[in-house]
């Protein structure tokens, strides 16, 4: 039995130590917002936050997450997350939507560390998040819009 802290709740799971966190989240805990795309940390669809740092759940052995805080798309909350999600709607970013949990999780992590990302910062933070629908231009616009909104909120 492993005890995981997922989105602020403790979960007891009976799984092999080397099982990737992704499949524990999806098939055991039932949190399906985190997506499977490649299984090899190549596409970013499975991004989650481990102690607030982005990580690829598809290659992360579940045993390594014991004692850490795991945040999935379902557990995102607070001003940054809500602003990012609203910016995603305002800029009409998602198409099929499958990669967007990963895009949003990585953007939240970016803005938590850098409140005014340049285009290059966005490239660095999000170039591991593949989108086959080609939403990148609106993703970029939404990241900038979210940053601007957060900064406005901070100064007013």
């Amino acid at each position, binding site marked *: 039995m492993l005890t995981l802290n997922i989105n602020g709740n403790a979960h007891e799971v009976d799984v092999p130590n080397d099982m990737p966190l992704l499949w524990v989240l999806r*098939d055991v805990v039932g949190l399906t917002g985190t997506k*499977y795309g*490649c299984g*090899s940390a190549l596409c970013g669809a499975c991004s989650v936050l481990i102690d607030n740092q982005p990580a690829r759940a598809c290659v992360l052995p579940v045993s390594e997450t014991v004692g850490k805080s795991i945040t999935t798309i379902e557990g995102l909350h607070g001003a940054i997350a809500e602003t990012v999600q609203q910016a995603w709607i305002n800029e009409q970013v998602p*198409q099929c*939507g499958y990669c967007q949990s990963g895009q949003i999780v990585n953007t939240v992590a970016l803005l938590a560390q850098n409140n005014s990302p340049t285009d290059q910062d966005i490239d660095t933070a999000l*170039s591991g998040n593949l*989108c086959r629908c080609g*939403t990148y231009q609106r993703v970029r616009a939404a990241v900038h819009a979210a940053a601007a909104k957060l900064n406005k909120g901070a100064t007013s």
Partner: protein
Amino acid sequence: MNRRQFLQMSLTVSGSLLIGVELAAKTPEETNLETPLEKKIFNPNAWIRIDPTNKITFLIDRSEMGQGVTTSLAMLIAEEMEVDLDQITTEFAPAGDQYRNALIGLQLTGGSTSVREAWEKLRRAGAVAKMVLIEAAAQTWDVPKEECRAHKGKVVHNENSFAYGELVARAAKLSPPDPDSISLKPASEFRLIGKSAPRLDLHDKVTGKALFGIDVKLPNLLIASVLRAPMIGGKLKDVDDSAVRQMAGVRHVIKTSDGVAVVADNFWLAQQGVKALKVEWEGGDARLSTESIVDALKEAAAREKAVVAKQVGNLKNVRAADKILEVEYVAPFQAHACMEPLNCTADVKKDRCEVWVGTQNQSGALQTAKEITGLTVDAIKIHTTYLGGGFGRRGERDFVRDALEISKAIDAPVKVIWTREQDMQHDFYRPISYQKLRAFINKDNELIGWQQRIASPSIMARAMPDRLKDGLDHSSVEGAADLPYDIQNISVEYALKNPGNVPVGFWRSVGHSQNAFVTESFIDEIAVATRQNPVEFRQQLLKNHPRHLGVLMLAAEKVDWEQTLEQGEGRGVAVHHCFGSYCAQIAEVAVDKNGNVRVKKVICAIDCGQTVNPNTIEAQMHSAIVYGLTATLHSSISIKNGTIQQSNFDTFPILKINEMPIIEVYIVQSEEAPGGVGEPALPPIAPAVANAVFAATGKRIRHLPIHHTDLA
């Protein structure tokens, strides 16, 4: 479209009003008025459901794979029904003949047909609902219906009003209006159509709540992974599963028609089981390679016998041409690589069957379920989820068959998930296309003849053999057989050849994706050879094609020609018509000393007739351009020793955000009937970029992706 339409209304068990406009050509049972009401209730043939609590539901009969149909189709109904988009709920329709796509003949989302097919149908459905509700209100108030009007989900008469939900019981008792009495709003009165509307599916898509096929949950659901033959055409010879059966969490190992399935408590365990299988395969052709396929196509193209797909004038007239330009082009196999790997969930019982799947092809899923279970249509339910990309791949039935076969064998609900590697190595690939072209130029420097011979595997030969006419697969020549340029003598010819029987299928924009690359690159070569400006040259040859010309000139007008390009930079243009729409693109590229190409900007002009939702039209332009850029710059499927060489995003790289060009989209205002938008922006991007690379480097790209050509 001038089809006879039947109106249908019924009151459901829950007291909801169900309204639909049905196409002709139904089975006698469906149109028989004696068919019991219950049957209509449980097999709803409609798009609109209004319940007494005023919940208005639109049943969306096309698949949402990112293109925005949930919203655009809802807009068509809402426009005529006089409701706002925020007053409605959408739901995916079940599988049923009443939801067939009249342009395709199946309940299928593809061919950029959704809005085109629904344009009249769903507006009429909305209009009928409105007319009946007005009638019901007028009767209740005992006033002439002409004095009543519908507005924001209410029927209004002077200061009285009824919400639609309050009229449900009375409306259901009325006869539907005479089809000839239905009149649709003129474009000048549109409230919604043609104005950007926010998508209805985004809240769920930014919170992780959207249900994709891979997310389906059921009580006691088992998860399966299927191992398939590594070689193209390979078959299972023998399997030793003794070790796998002992593994913790593995519940079943069974043979399917495509391989061996391991069924386990979760996907990780199922994959571990697959890895531990000891399998012997047979069949396949170890000599098959991309090179052997290209050689075979080259040979097929060289043979004299080919089917003529288009002929204008006669090339015999141009034998005395002053100059002949002769070149060959190759567009490779491509994988679909939807972000959501293929998957399907099925629960097969003796007397019923349910399928949950992100499919583009509900008719195909239903047919597959019928074949595998032996059940009748009434006992089968197809639940459509969101699709994490489709691009043609999810119109196939192999992943649906997996789930049905396994569930039937183990008598339990099961979800089959393909790994990314399986998804990429067992695709129905965009066919490779080898093409040989000749341009004939006279002494006055005029283009007087065009000959194009296309050799490629045929999609139709596999998927719909009855649509193969005299050896001609229209999907292999589309975009070439309808070359718009006014040239006195044209011959477009086709040689069908599928070396090694590589499985081929419909890939976003189908034949246009290869053929526009070739035609729009070659016309650029001719412009260069005759020392003419590529835009003006096209303009001369498109005088009789106003909509081609319209987008070409619109794109050209948006370019800042004054802005001088740096060393190693270039602009390229392409224009193409497909799926009822016209698209021109001008790409700006920079090629560095090492030959790396960066696409900096794409100007995209689209004429898709009357627009419905410009928001999603713009998004589809981005989407098709990015999908096409991946195939232009990076991806291809190659074959060696009879096996597919690519398996994941490291070997099949797709465009990343740091490579994203700035895309400017300009939409032509038009009152022509709507054209498609999911595909038309894809074909022009490869030639626009290739032509820009030529402008930048003087090197012509005749083989995709671009890195086949050394640009350093």
